[in-house]
């Protein structure tokens, strides 16, 4: 068994430098790599390009990196639950590349799977298609999209083992499995790290080969963005 464990977030982020491109898992605030984001803040790295479906809120998630003006560019499908984001974007300090959510997911998956480019119908006829090759398949126009390239991917799982195998819970899965292995170095943080052999090999969502470094996270806040409930009658 190849042991992928590192001590903590600090060790996991060894090699982070200003100007790098990072993938960051999560949807809204669900399933975000909280420990890695805190460590990114501490690292002081700037001019980062972040590929992440959303950009966090003012005081949590990637919002923490925006506060420190560490992000140069966001590549996302939906942003702006976030005043500081809006301020930086409108002032031109922050570049934003908005792309369809399915294309975002597939461009990550393509990077993971060694597919350099693929065709998708999403965005045809819109400004998303500008400058892109258009080709008809089955009588329907599609556009050519390319795999992402990133230096680090930060993902968060529910459980993991020493071999780097990951299991996710609920919709906190989202972009995490498609980013694992899609960057040069994938860092996984988990709520519970177990010895190799404790997880059922049939039930691994992401095999350890896609994960370079894994560590046990601490102090998860797991904030809820839209607490929506019904009352018992």
């Amino acid at each position, binding site marked *: 068994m190849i042991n992928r464990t590192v001590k903590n977030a600090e060790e996991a982020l060894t090699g982070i430098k200003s100007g790098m491109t990072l993938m960051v898992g999560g*949807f*809204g605030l669900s399933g975000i790599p909280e420990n890695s984001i805190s460590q990114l803040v501490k690292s002081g790295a700037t001019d980062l390009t972040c590929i992440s479906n959303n950009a966090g809120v003012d005081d949590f998630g990637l919002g923490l990196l925006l506060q420190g003006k560490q992000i140069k560019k966001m590549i996302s499908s939906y*942003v702006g639950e976030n005043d500081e984001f809006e301020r930086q974007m409108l002032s031109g300090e922050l570049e934003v590349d908005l792309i369809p959510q*399915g294309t975002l997911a597939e461009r990550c998956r393509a990077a993971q799977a060694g597919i350099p480019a693929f065709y998708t119908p999403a*965005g045809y006829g*819109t400004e998303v298609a500008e400058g892109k090759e258009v080709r008809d398949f089955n009588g329907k126009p599609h556009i050519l999209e390319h795999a992402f390239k990133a230096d680090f991917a930060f993902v968060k799982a*529910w459980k993991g083992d020493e071999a780097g195998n990951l299991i996710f819970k609920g919709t906190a899965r*989202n972009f995490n499995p498609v980013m694992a292995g899609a960057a040069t170095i994938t860092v996984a943080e988990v709520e519970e790290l177990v010895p190799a052999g404790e997880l059922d090999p049939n039930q691994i969502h992401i095999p350890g080969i896609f994960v370079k470094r894994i560590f046990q996270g601490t102090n998860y806040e797991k904030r809820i963005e839209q607490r929506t409930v019904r009352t018992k009658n």
Partner: protein
Amino acid sequence: MLSKDQIAQRISKEVKDGYYVNLGIGIPTLVANYVPQGIEVEFQSENGVLGMGPFPYEGEEDPDVINAGKQTITTLPGASFFDSATSFGMIRGQHVDLTILGAMEVAENGDIANWKIPGKMVKGMGGAMDLVASAENIIVAMMHTNRAGASKLLKRCSLPLTGVNCITKVVTNMAVLDVTDKGFVLLERAPGVSVEDIKAATEGTLIVNGDIPEMQF
């Protein structure tokens, strides 16, 4: 004029037994409340869940179980969780039978604009471009006119597009319309709304064939 709930209620009649349905944020979300008894459907949310149930009871919220609107949800028996690539595989691969979403504008050629107003803060298209480019069966739920009173059913969209030639049906607070090669075909009127009212509120080509029935609920 219909309330938002009534628009959702009318759309619920378009939901057939055995449909997998993706509901957008806003009015579409309300459709889930009106699916008739005896009709089995499963709701998909593009952040990675199939088989969504109602909101959780207070105290039972789970931060790891949300919908694409970031609301806490529950799941029903037979539900499954999956990653974002698989989720959009369901959408792009046309496994989802019906997509219901809101719009700022719909054009008579089936174009839709619902993500960007130039000069205003742009939040992004989320999954909307994938949904409209992929689905064969898309219903738009929206008000017939905007806050300024201008029609949202147009000859051509004026806002940046979300997708082209893709919308097949529109349900507004005034009418149910099919989007066809020839324009908007008026199918039903909201109670108390006349064909003349609808004509006046529709900038795009409106086709009125014979008597137009009032919606039934």
